[in-house]
Each structure stands twice: as structure tokens, then as C-alpha cells.
């Protein structure tokens, strides 16, 4: 059996780290869906407030979405532009 090299160890840990970072992308999806459901309920109850409801939801959803993108950036950098390999 071949010994585990430092490079292989870093690559394996990076892959696990990328997988863990991708978990951050699930939350905003669930949150946006929940908000949209509640927004639809609100518009059904008070149709004249549609503009305000959509506006508030749009800003909240855009900010929440960026949080998911942080995780995606970390995952992609770990997988395709890993800075740790250069340190070996």
C-alpha cells in the first residue's frame, strides 16, 4: 500500500471542505421559498399591498442569496483554485 502524501491529504480535505461549504447554499433556498409562501398569503389577504410586499421580499431575498454565494465561492476556490497546494 502506498503512503498518503501531503498533497493527497490536502486535496482530500479540500474536497470535504468544499462539500461542507455547499451546505450554506441550502438555507437561502428554503428561506426564500418560505418567504415567498408567506408573501403570497399576504397578497391574498391584502392585494393593494402587493408592491410593498414584493419590494420588501426582493431586498431580503437578494441579501439572503448573497450569503449562499459565499459558500459557493469557498467551495469552487477549494476545488479549482486551491491556494493550499502551493504551500506544500
Amino acid at each position, binding site marked *: 500500500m502506498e503512503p498518503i502524501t501531503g498533497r493527497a491529504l490536502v486535496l482530500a480535505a479540500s474536497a470535504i471542505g468544499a462539500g461542507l461549504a455547499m451546505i450554506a447554499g441550502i438555507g437561502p*433556498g*428554503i428561506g*426564500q421559498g*418560505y418567504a415567498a409562501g408567506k408573501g*403570497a398569503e399576504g397578497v391574498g389577504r391584502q392585494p393593494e399591498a402587493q408592491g410593498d*410586499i*414584493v*419590494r420588501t421580499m426582493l431586498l431580503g431575498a*437578494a441579501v439572503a442569496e448573497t450569503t449562499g454565494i459565499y459558500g459557493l465561492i469557498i467551495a469552487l476556490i477549494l476545488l479549482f483554485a486551491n491556494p493550499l497546494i502551493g504551500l506544500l
Partner: protein
Amino acid sequence: MLKRNKGSDKMNPVWETQFKIIKGVLLVNSAIGVIGVFIANPPLPFLVGLLFGTIISLLNFRLLSLTLNKAVKMQPHQAQAYTSIRYMIRYLIIGLVLYISIQAEYIHVLGTIFGILSLKFVILQKELFNNKQYFKNIFKRKEAK
């Protein structure tokens, strides 16, 4: 159901907000581009990345607005599923853009990241931290207000 004329689109608060945010993103990213010209070496890949990220982020924002406008007219459980699926599509688009930026040599990934993430800071600045009185009151005791 509310009826809306095509001519009254400019008065729509959703459209007004979108326009304000888009204008803010373009301004902030222009400033980042000017700073990047002096800091980045070479500057062209950074600028291309910034342009790429800005365009995708604004298109994603527009797509989000269209999605939410459609979702509020649906049944709540339908809206929930519809919005979550559309979120995944947007997430995939951002993933592809970042992947291309990492792989292509003529695009600097840092520029793309700045372009994509500046939207959040513009929204926070325009909608949440736009009250000067709030900052003045931070260091005041409650009794002094």
C-alpha cells in the same frame, strides 16, 4: 387583482427600488474598477471579471424580481416550490460564472466576486443604513435622546 397600465410602471415601488439598486451597483462597481486599475497587475483581467460579475449580478437581481412578482400571485405552497426551484437555477448560473472565471486566464476571479457581492452592500447601504440619525444615536444614552 390589481390592474396596472403600462405607462404607470415607473411609479411602481418595486421598479423604483430596482432602478435605485441597479444605479447604485453600477456606481460602486465603477469606483471599484477605477481603484482596480491602479492596484491590479495587470488590470485588464480584473476589469473584465468585474464587468462579467456586475452584469450577471444585475441580471440575477432582475430574475429574482420577476420570480417574486410571479410567486405572489400563486397559491402559497406553489409559490414556495416555485421560488426554491428558481433559486437553485440562479445558484447554478452563479456557480457556472464563477467556474468560468476561475478557469479562464483572461478573467480575474476576484473581479467577478467583487461584481457579484457588491449588490448586497449596495442594498444594505441604500435601504438599511441610510438614516444618518441612526448613526448619531448609536453613542447616545437612551436617557439623552
